[in-house]
């Protein structure tokens, strides 16, 4: 009896041991994730909530939770000429930026995909602007487009006296110079995304189409580009959120000028919160910007997740 008991005990503890290990294995990933989850919960979602609450207060220099103004800040926001200018500029900027980047990126990717020599050399040339910060891009383009030292000046010294390109100094055109700089920066990155997509296209499909007598243009138009749908979607999401939060490029190139002609929502948020001691107005503009981003990201996530379930 005693003997069997002694034999049983280790078996039992072994079983308990295994149970503990399994429990640990089950809990370990959650434990390891917990700190980062807590940090994100606090520093991202917590502060989103904080900003939202702030936008209903009368905060000026520092957060102040003693005065509540309801939607007053939002009303003031949409009556403020600078905010209206910011929204218009955002519309112009994001539509052009996304459209031109996508078209240029796709075009470059298709050309690079023709199994040309020196692709390994050409690809990084297009991609490198992405390695620069938007601020550096902005300063470089500011100098390049400044009529008194940049392109126009150089053309004049080369003898083309009538050459004139002074958009950056003109209130109506300045926002387009920012589009130019932003497109220069990002289209290489979009190209890389499309190139990866093009490399993933099944050669069999193309060969089948060729046997059927389809021209190259037809193959691209009817088969390859439609196959790029997920890449279009990813590119759109990446570019759209870059457009909404565009700030450094504008600060470096025009700092909102001439006049208030190139204000964008992110610049508005920064200037009101920190420059004008209007923290609550800044917070309400930040909330509007966040809603804009959510309106892009949420449908994207929804379609992605639903797609995942379907496959």
């Amino acid at each position, binding site marked *: 009896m005693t003997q069997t008991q002694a034999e049983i005990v280790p078996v039992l503890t072994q079983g308990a041991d295994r149970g503990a290990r399994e429990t640990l294995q089950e809990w370990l990933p959650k*434990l390891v994730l*917990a*700190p980062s989850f*807590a940090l994100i919960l606090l520093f991202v979602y917590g502060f989103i909530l904080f900003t939202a609450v702030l936008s209903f207060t009368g905060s*000026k*220099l*520092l*957060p102040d939770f003693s005065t509540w103004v309801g939607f007053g800040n939002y009303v*003031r926001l949409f*009556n*403020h*000429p*600078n905010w209206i200018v910011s929204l218009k500029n955002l519309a112009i900027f994001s539509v052009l930026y996304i459209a031109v980047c996508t078209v240029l990126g796709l075009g470059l990717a298709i050309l690079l995909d023709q199994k040309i020599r020196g692709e390994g050399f050409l690809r990084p040339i297009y991609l490198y602007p992405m390695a620069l910060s938007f601020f550096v891009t902005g300063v470089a383009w*500011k100098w390049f487009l*400044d*009529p*008194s030292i940049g392109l126009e000046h150089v053309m004049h010294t080369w003898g083309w006296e009538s050459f004139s390109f*002074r958009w*950056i*100094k003109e*209130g109506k055109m300045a926002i387009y110079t920012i589009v130019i700089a932003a497109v220069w920066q990002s289209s290489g990155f979009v190209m890389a995304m499309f190139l990866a997509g093009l490399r993933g296209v099944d050669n069999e499909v193309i060969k089948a189409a060729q046997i059927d007598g389809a021209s190259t243009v037809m193959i691209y138009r009817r088969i390859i580009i439609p196959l790029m749908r997920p890449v279009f979607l990813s590119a759109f999401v990446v570019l759209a959120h870059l457009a909404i939060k565009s700030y450094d490029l504008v600060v470096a190139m*025009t*700092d909102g*000028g*001439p*006049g*208030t*002609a190139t204000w964008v929502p992110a610049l508005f948020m920064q*200037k009101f919160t*920190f*420059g*004008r*001691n*209007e923290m609550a107005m800044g917070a309400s503009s930040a909330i509007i910007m966040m809603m804009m981003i959510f309106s892009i990201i949420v449908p994207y996530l929804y379609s992605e997740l639903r797609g995942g379930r379907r496959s």
Partner: protein
Amino acid sequence: MLRKLLIGTMLSTALTAYAAPSFAEEVEVLHWWTSGGEAAALDVLKKNLEAEGVTWKDMPVAGGGGEQAMTALRARVTAGNPPTAVQALGFDITDWAKQGVVGDLGEVAAEENWDAVIPAALQAFSKYDGKWIAAPVNVHSTNWVWINKKALDAAGGKAPETWDELIAVLDKMKANGISPIGHGGQAWQDATIFDAVVLAEGTDFYKASMIDLDPAALNSDKMVGVFDKMGKLKEYVDADFSGRDWNLASAMVIEGKAGMQFMGDWAKGEFLKAGLKPGADFVCIRFPGTQGAVTFNSDQFMMFKVGDANKAAQLKMASAIEDPAFQSAFNVVKGSAPARTDVPNDAFDDCGKKAMADLAEADKSGKLFGSMAHGHANPAAVKNAMYDVITRHFNGELDSKAAAEELANAVAAAQ
């Protein structure tokens, strides 16, 4: 795990919070005087304090108008650990005082009789609720015109004293083939000119519109006239003015590419650095029609509430700032006038002497006003609302009548 992490974080925060040495007398100073001349000027103060056994802990946050410095300050104050002294301008001081976080310099101020030697218009910012909370370092006046002497000689040689004379000189300079006004198209620079043009319409009008923010003065025929004059001045600015920094505009005047610049007296430093002599190579006058009145901005060191251990050092610093010898040494280098009116003017150049005399005169006659363009006439929100309108008008987005209307509306909305 989570708890350990939390405990660890709390411990390390607590350690850093209490790690400050409490033995030596020390002042921690947040400022944005990081460029050559300014840093050298501040170094004088640092040395004076070190001679008294007070350690200087430097906390420089670079960036023109101190916007970044104020952002850094927000973080420090919110964390409950403000620096001893912070360089600050105008209404920012009042805004911080309202938060109840500033110190009290009463002892030193009473002992050294600051009330009698510092102009009342400055005291409006250095005091809050009757208590001294900041020590003013200097007075910059902003209604200056800096004229290239050669360009002026070629245009008749007489410095303009009225609006019509100014336009005549500008016309001649234009005919001589230079761009008459060296100007940078940034909102605050546009506003600096605007300030002077409003002041030229009379000190009562300046006070009513810029300081009292009287809607009837803001949207008045007189204000439409001011905007018309701004539009007129715009005709004498070169085509590439937009976005140019103020010191590049000064350089245009120094090199003779432009005739004159409307700018505060920090511009003088650029002329002196280029080896130009006041009177011989360049001329400093008040904006035509504003002689006798002065719009100013004043750098001050705002003192925060610190523990008893650091209080003595803070008072020593305040006293060192108001020391007449330091006021003279600092302002000779900085190009401004001393904040005290009893400092001898021997060390200053002709423009500096004029600045001090004008300041004392304006103080006596009650014509010393805070500058709107530099945040000394109204709070940041109102100032920037005015900037928006001024710069939009200057860039041709609004006509004069619409601008005056918009000015009144924008100010009302920002209050």
